[in-house]
Every structure is written in C-alpha cells, then in structure tokens.
C-alpha cells in the first residue's frame, strides 16, 4: 500500500516495544462481537494509482464541463477565468497541508494571508472588519441573521423575496430550531425589486432585513431607503452578495448603509466545483459589532522581539472556549478557498477588478440585447450586472433541457429554483461573464429560438 510506510518488520519491532504480540491486542477494548475479522465484505480491495485515476476519469467524462459548452449558468455560482498561478500557489504543500494556525510562530504564512484576505473583503464590502471566512454564502447568511438577533435581542428576520431560495431555505431550516421568526416571500416578477413591499414588512420587532444585491433575478436596487427604514425601527440591514465581481462596478453594501454584509466568494479564485467547497464572506460596518461576529478572526500583534506578527484573536467567542455559550458552533473556516480568493484578488488589484467587472457588464448587455431579439423572449430587468432574467413565454425548465440537448448550458430556470411556483415557471436566469464569447451568445440565441419555436 503506497501510502503506508510501515513494513511488517517495523510492525513486529513496534509491537515488541509496546509489549504485545499482535495488533489485535491493541483493539482489546473493542468488544469481540463488534470487531470485524477481515476487510468489510463486498467492498473492493486497494487499487493502483493508475487504476483509480482511470475509474475517476471515467466518472469525470460523464459530465459536460462548463468549458466545453456555451455556458450561461449562475444563480449563486459563477464561472470566471482563474489565473494559472492561483492554483499553483494553493497547491504549495505549506498552504495545502497545514492546519488551522493555532501555533502562530510556525503559521505566519497562513495568518498573514488571512489578514490580507480580511482587509480585501472589508474594502470590497465597504465594511470595517471581515472575518477569516465561513463555509459558504448560504451558511454565512444564516449566521448574519443569528448575529442580528444577538445584537438587537429580537427574533424576527424579514427576508427579501429576491434572496436566493437556497439561502432562504437554510435560514428557515435553522430558524425552525432556534425559534426565530422568518418573514419571507417569493420574488415578484417585475423589472425592479419591490423595495416598498419589503419596507412595509419591517416593524419594531424586526431584528434584521435581509436583501440580496444584486438580487436572485439579477436586479440592482438602491439599498439606502431599506437601510433607513430598518434603522428607524432599530433593526439591522443584512446585505447578501453572491457575485463579488459585481462590487467592482457597483457601490459597496457598506456605502449604502448595510450593517452586516455576507456573501459567496467563489467567483474570485475558487471555481465552480459542482457547488463546493465555496467561500463564505462575512463583514460588519461598525467595529463595535466585532465581538458578536461568528468565525475566526486574524489580528495583528508583535512577538517577544517586537517584530510584527499575526495571531487568531478574540477566540473567546468560539466554541472551544465558550462551549454552549459560543456565538456559533463553527470551527472550520474555508482557509484554502480564502487563499485562492486572496491570490486572485491580488492579481486583479483595483485596476483588474474594475476591468473585469466592466467586461462582465459589457458582455451581459450585449447578450441581453441579442436575446431580446429572440421571438417570444423579453428581458425582465431594468438593471443588472452580469445576470438577468428572461421571460420566455413558456415553461423555462423544459427549455433548459432542450438547450442542453443542443449542447448549450443556457441558464437556470426559475422553476428549478422554485419548484411548484407556477407564476415563476417562465423565467430563465442567464449569467454572462468574461469567459463568455460573442460566439457563445449567438449560439444561445439561435438555440433558444429553435427551442422556443
């Protein structure tokens, strides 16, 4: 077995040192009836590297990868070009095979990276402080709701109807067990988000208002009036962003009055990976809320010789100290994905991120105009960044499958996101990034025309 360095001679010598005659004597505390004599029956035995690779490649080949088709799928995960050096750096063993930096003297690489990452996220979000990441955007969204409840000591969260339905479902699931009340709705099919409807649902018991920006249908709302309404009622504004590239083009949530900003960081450096691992981003605008934040935080300090260094700090909020009084039961962050984000964002810089955002928006405008010419198709959005909703005049879900038959991954039907909600069935979410070519747009337009005919 290529991963097991002990030889039988070693094992014999070691058993001798321990003072037992067989390995089974080390398992003496396992009741005999629970101990398996040999390998578990019915399962395959070990395989060579070559054989495993062959097996896995066959599985991989059964999938149509995004790079092999005109690709327009988004809805919370976006395909962007990742520079080759990102993957090189995250595969360095000192990053890949290190642990949570609990011994800071020999983990400054990870810690300094996290400090840079926190700074990048805070600036992108227009916030004072970001944490060292959470699991993903959906779990970060729930953590924001829970944090708002801790701060306001209220238990009613008002969710925008245009929040990603998976995110809303995670919040509803968790709230069932914590006793928080969740007021939510499904999105209204209209060109602009329904700010008035949302504001009308805020009252003096509201802990927070949760708004996605840009929203699940791709629309961009000015959040200022929602922030004012929330604050007037003593509630916090939680803003969810699932496409960080957008923030290279539009105002930051912090600028618009968000108190807590959370989101999915996958677009920068992480890749699609069929849904995970992704990168939960979490930031607060007011530094006084830092001690109510979930997750790890990296902070600057000095060592015994006065040199600058970094440590995990404020850890008394966490489960390993507070146990049942912890702010959250989370103990893992998404460290390697945070590194990928940090490296990619460093390669982009201010200049590159703004160019990337502009290119996404340019191509999305191009696509929206072209697709609007397809008979029976209407672009819903008045505003959008790189994703918009088409109304296709028939069941979009079936259309997506027919597009796939033609080799085009043409978007996400609202029917898939909201099963059983008939009034949304004709909606098709289309995402366009810098990886989309004008040829891809033309391929989608002509395939859609055939499919809808």
């Amino acid at each position, binding site marked *: 077995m290529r991963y097991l360095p002990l030889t039988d001679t070693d094992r014999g010598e070691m058993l001798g040192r321990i003072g037992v005659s067989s390995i089974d004597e080390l398992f003496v505390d396992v009741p005999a009836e629970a101990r398996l004599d040999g390998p578990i029956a019915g399962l395959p035995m070990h395989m060579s590297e070559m054989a495993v690779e062959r097996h896995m490649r066959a599985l991989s080949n059964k999938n149509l990868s995004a790079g092999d088709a005109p690709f327009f799928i988004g809805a919370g995960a976006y395909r962007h070009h990742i520079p080759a050096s990102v993957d090189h750096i995250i595969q360095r063993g000192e990053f890949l095979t290190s642990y949570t930096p609990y011994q800071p003297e020999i983990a400054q690489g990870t810690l300094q990276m996290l400090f840079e990452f926190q700074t990048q996220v805070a600036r992108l979000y227009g916030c004072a402080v970001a944490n060292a990441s959470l699991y993903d955007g959906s779990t970060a969204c729930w953590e924001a709701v829970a944090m708002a409840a801790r701060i306001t000591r209220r238990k009613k969260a008002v969710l925008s109807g245009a929040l990603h339905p998976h995110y809303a479902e995670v919040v509803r699931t968790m709230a069932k067990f914590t006793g928080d009340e969740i007021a939510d709705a499904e999105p209204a099919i209209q060109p602009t988000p329904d700010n008035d409807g949302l504001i009308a649902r805020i009252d003096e018991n509201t802990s927070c208002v949760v708004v996605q920006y840009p929203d699940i249908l791709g629309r961009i709302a000015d959040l200022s009036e929602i922030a004012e309404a929330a604050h007037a009622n003593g509630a916090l504004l939680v803003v969810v962003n699932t496409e960080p590239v957008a923030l290279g083009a539009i105002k930051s949530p912090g600028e618009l009055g968000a108190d807590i900003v959370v989101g999915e960081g996958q677009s920068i450096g992480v890749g699609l990976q069929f849904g995970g691992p992704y990168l939960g981003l979490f930031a607060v605008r007011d530094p006084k809320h830092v*001690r109510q934040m979930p997750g790890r935080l990296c902070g600057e300090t000095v060592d015994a010789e006065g040199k600058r260094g970094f440590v995990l700090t*404020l*850890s*008394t909020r966490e489960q390993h*100290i507070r146990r049942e*009084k912890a702010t959250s039961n989370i103990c893992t962050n998404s460290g390697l994905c945070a590194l990928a984000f940090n490296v990619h964002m460093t390669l982009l810089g201010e200049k590159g991120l703004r160019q990337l955002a502009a290119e996404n928006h340019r191509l999305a405008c191009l696509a929206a105009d072209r697709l609007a010419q397809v008979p029976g198709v209407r672009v819903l959005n008045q505003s959008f960044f790189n994703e918009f909703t088409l109304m296709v005049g028939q069941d979009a879900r079936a259309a997506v499958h027919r597009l796939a038959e033609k080799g085009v991954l043409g978007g996400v039907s609202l029917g898939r996101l909201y099963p059983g909600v008939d009034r949304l069935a004709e909606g098709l979410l289309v995402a366009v990034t810098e990886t989309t070519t004008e040829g891809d747009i033309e391929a989608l337009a002509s395939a859609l025309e055939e499919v809808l005919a």
Partner: protein
Amino acid sequence: MPRYFTDEHEWIDVDGVTATVGITDYAQGQLGDIVFVELPAIGTNLDKGGDAAVVESVKAASDVYAPISGKVTEANSDLEEDPALVNTDPEEGGWFFKMTVGDASELEGLMDEAGYKAFVDGL
C-alpha cells in the same frame, strides 16, 4: 459604605438603595490579562446568582454573576477602552456596573472582607 463578597469572587458595595459590583483582586489574578469585559445594558433586570457580565482573558471567558437581584443603572464605560483596569485596579476603578438593591435581605448570605479573606485562603 459596607462591602460584601460572594463565593464566585464578586464584590458589591452597597450605598443605600444602589450598589456597585466588580470582581475581586483574587479573581483577576486567576484570570490573567483581561482583554474584554461585556457589561449588562442599562435597565437589565438581574436575578441573584444569574449571569450579569462576561470577563474575557485571551484563553478564557468567565461569567460574572449578580450578587443580588436588582436593575442595572450604570455600566463602567472606562472598561471598554481599557479592560486592563480590571487587572490594575479591580476593586476600585475596575468596577463593572451599578445596580439597584432589589431586596436588601439577599445581602445577608454574603461574606464580609474578613470572611472572604478566610474563604480565599482556604482555596
């Protein structure tokens, strides 16, 4: 002004209908460097023996309990800026909060200075 002590290492100075609460010099010594104190909001109703505040060192967070029942009237804002006051001046400038004396009879079970000293010596 009489000072009382609890076996959870809080002290309480009683001045008529109001009282001031903090943690003892012995307690701060056990905790080590204090990095943060979470104080109760003004107006909070406290029950004797219930959670009132949290004091944090780098590696530990400890609850501070209400020595008696009453309502919080003031919190020591100096501790927000300088939590180390709890280490340097625990029984004066490092006080935590002021509260009303809800039920003066609850003071009867607490220790006086000599009693507390004997209690600590026995630990």
